[in-house]
């Protein structure tokens, strides 16, 4: 074909622009728009090349027979996303562009992200929009969007698509579809047939066990009975200074024992029995994989896993960091440590630190055990930002850069002192400690907390006055609620879900109303869904079964298992479950309907009415104007006329929190495209007035 060209498929528009700019070299890069989609055209080595973006997945799994209100469904096919999903209209134009470009496409290159999802995105486009040319397409493999790596990847193309990743991706999508569609429909339709109201109740292969973790924790918390114990608090006076001592036992089980200790030691002289000094080494941290980055970003910035992933992806698309969806904790030398540090040394924020590392004799990073065949751990590319980064981007970028540099540093050393003091047969300890070699702490600041306690000069046999000894009554506490970061860790530890899907699954639990609040509280609906599934089909929430299936899908990635076997197994697992659910539809529906109604009401209750004191404030809609407002439940009895306005264009969410200033309920307002904010519903709230002044 004389005027044939090479088509490079990118995963997203930003990636397409970066790939095109990198590969165009000195040729004239043309930005073209067709079907309202921007793509790029240039010449390289005399060949015409076009770089076209996808928009994530353009094709999806969909059923081939029956409507939406029908289950079980086991026959499916891949179809354009716009045909299967209402909100995917944009994909129609992009598919049209790919189809048009397919006519003269001489060579096809998949340059989507090198992982399961990326490989599948490229594969489905080539298979369906380029008329089944998947076996002649080539693959570009890269971990950063830097000019150098993109050019290397283009010049060293993999001769064919990564079919094992593609197969693993296809299977995962198909298995998840089978579970998700059938189980969600079973629950939704059971409830609908019972109460006549349509509420989407989703449950999936990973969602079920994940929700079960939260419910198990909720049961422990709700049925927790505290037990008392006593702690001894002691203060010693040494050379006129007061020091806090630690008693030999953390917990005293009996009150009389605690009383006796206080009686025996209060105001008495103790004697130093021993002084031990020890140097404690703390090794540098491992480089970030996605999970550890998400946990650390939650710890320091309060970012949810989803938010961190979104920010990291933007940094990747800006060629500032490597591909973030990785489970690797390895930094191979091929990433060019020196080059990265030299790049970072051009950034005034990291100049001093980077130069310090470059002056080391050799550069060897501390690495973790986890590996990922597709990508290394997350690392900065060393490129300077081409635009001003947002506050979120700056935070995550800084965390990644400092973590990367810390891995090349030496261990930190702390000199720890333990002084043992004896008093009337009881032992107390005085701890001191100071840093003798900052090591990697220097690079990882401010993300490391170091406590120093300098002790005075002490000698064995020296007398010490225990000037205050008392006991404090304490009670055991229930286990903490999960937060998005700790739930993500449990999912990782149990090997359920993938690095790419976990954050989204956690979001879905919130969206469906199964959990609420940052410290995840299971709602009655979430509770009921798990209770119902445990009763009628416990295998759906079984962590072991989910993990087993997950492991089989991982084997497909390695070529050790095949798609058909896994699909047959999934269908065989589902068939009896769905038959059971269908037979018990009435019972399932009755159990869920009550919880749906309770959840619907809970979402509308804003709090207690501050005017009448007995009613509840609730979100209502005016029959006349159809506008939303807050009214009191006592209005209907004619007892209270409390009414407050609500924003009409933004979504509103109740919180169960009250204003610190006036005690009125607080709601969350979620304007479209802007960050949500908390607001007190009291129009005369003193805080609001103070702000206005």
């Amino acid at each position, binding site marked *: 074909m004389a005027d044939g060209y090479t088509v490079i498929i990118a995963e997203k528009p930003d990636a397409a622009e970066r790939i095109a700019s990198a590969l165009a070299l000195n040729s004239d890069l043309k930005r073209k728009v067709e079907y309202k989609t921007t793509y790029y055209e240039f010449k390289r080595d005399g060949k015409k090349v076009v770089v076209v973006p996808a928009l994530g997945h353009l094709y999806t799994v969909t059923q081939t027979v029956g409507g939406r209100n029908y289950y079980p469904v086991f026959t499916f096919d891949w179809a354009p996303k716009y045909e299967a999903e209402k909100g995917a209209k944009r994909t129609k134009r992009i598919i049209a562009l790919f189809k048009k470009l397919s006519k003269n496409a001489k060579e096809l290159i998949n340059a989507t992200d090198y992982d399961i999802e990326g490989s599948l995105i490229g594969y489905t486009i080539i298979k369906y929009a380029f008329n089944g040319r998947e076996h002649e397409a080539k693959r570009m493999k890269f971990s950063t969007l830097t000019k150098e790596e993109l050019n290397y990847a283009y010049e060293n193309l993999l001769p064919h698509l990564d079919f094992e990743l593609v197969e693993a991706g296809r299977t995962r999508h198909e298995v998840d579809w089978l579970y998700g569609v059938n189980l969600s429909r079973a629950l939704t339709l059971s409830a609908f047939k019972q109460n006549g109201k349509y509420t989407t109740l989703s449950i999936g292969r990973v969602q079920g066990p994940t929700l079960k973790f939260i419910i198990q924790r909720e*049961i422990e*918390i*709700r*049925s*927790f*009975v*505290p*037990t*008392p*114990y006593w702690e001894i608090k002691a203060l010693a006076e040494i050379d006129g200074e007061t020091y806090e001592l630690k008693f030999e036992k953390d917990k005293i*089980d*009996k*009150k*009389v024992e605690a009383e006796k200790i206080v009686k025996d030691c209060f105001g008495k002289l103790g004697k130093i029995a021993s002084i031990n000094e020890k140097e404690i080494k703390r090794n540098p941290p491992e480089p970030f994989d996605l999970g550890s980055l998400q946990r650390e970003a939650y710890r320091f910035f309060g970012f949810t896993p989803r938010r961190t992933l979104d920010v990291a992806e933007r940094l990747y698309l800006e060629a500032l960091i490597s591909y973030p969806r990785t489970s690797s904790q390895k930094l191979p030398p091929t990433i060019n440590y020196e080059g990265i540090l030299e790049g970072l040394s051009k950034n005034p924020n990291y100049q001093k630190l980077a130069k310090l590392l470059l002056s080391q004799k050799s550069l060897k990073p501390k690495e973790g055990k986890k590996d990922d065949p597709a990508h290394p751990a997350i690392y900065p590319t060393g490129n300077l930002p081409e635009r001003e980064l947002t506050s979120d981007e700056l935070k995550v970028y800084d965390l990644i850069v400092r973590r990367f540099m810390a891995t090349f540093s030496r261990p930190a050393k702390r000199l720890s002192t333990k002084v043992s003091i004896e008093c009337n047969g009881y032992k107390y300890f005085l701890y001191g400690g100071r840093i003798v070699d900052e090591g990697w702490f220097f690079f990882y600041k401010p993300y490391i907390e170091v406590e120093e306690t300098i002790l005075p000069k002490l000698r064995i046999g020296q007398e010490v006055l225990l000037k205050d000894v008392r006991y404090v009554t304490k*009670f*055991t*506490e*229930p286990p903490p609620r999960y937060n998005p970061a700790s739930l993500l860790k449990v999912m990782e530890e149990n090997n359920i879900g993938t690095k790419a899907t976990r954050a989204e699954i956690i979001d879905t639990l919130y969206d469906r109303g199964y959990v609420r609040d940052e410290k995840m509280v299971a709602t009655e609906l979430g509770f009921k869904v798990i209770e119902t599934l445990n009763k009628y089909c416990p295998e759906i929430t079984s962590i072991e079964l989910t993990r087993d299936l997950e492991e089989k899908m991982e084997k497909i990635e390695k070529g050790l298992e095949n798609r058909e076997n896994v699909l047959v197994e999934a269908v065989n697992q589902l068939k009896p479950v769905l038959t059971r659910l269908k037979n018990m539809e009435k019972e399932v529906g009755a159990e869920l309907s009550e919880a749906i109604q309770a959840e619907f009401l809970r979402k509308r209750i804003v709090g207690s009415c501050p005017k009448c004191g007995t009613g509840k404030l609730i979100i209502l809609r005016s029959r006349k104007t159809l506008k939303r407002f807050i009214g009191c439940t006592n209005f209907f009895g004619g007892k209270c006329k409390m009414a407050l306005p609500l924003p009409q264009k933004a979504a509103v969410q109740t919180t169960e929190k009250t204003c610190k200033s006036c005690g009125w309920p607080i709601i969350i307002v979620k304007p479209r495209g802007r960050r949500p904010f908390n607001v007190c519903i009291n129009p005369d709230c003193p805080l609001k007035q103070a702000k206005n002044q």
Partner: protein
Amino acid sequence: MEKKHKEHKCVICSGESDGGEFCVWHKLSYEKLEEIFKLWQESMEISWREFLEEIRKNPNTGVWVREVASYILKKKG
């Protein structure tokens, strides 16, 4: 017939019971109360009633346990 129906509901939450006073969750909480009461008695001198009162006002107490403690205290007057 109606009486029998009532007997199968939890006295606290009206949830399904297996014939006893409580549903599965309130029953679990009651059993835990009995079990932990023994630990309290080993730690200090305390009666069942005093224990329930302490449990009811303790902020660490689970919501189901608090409901059971309140129910027993109210029932015994």
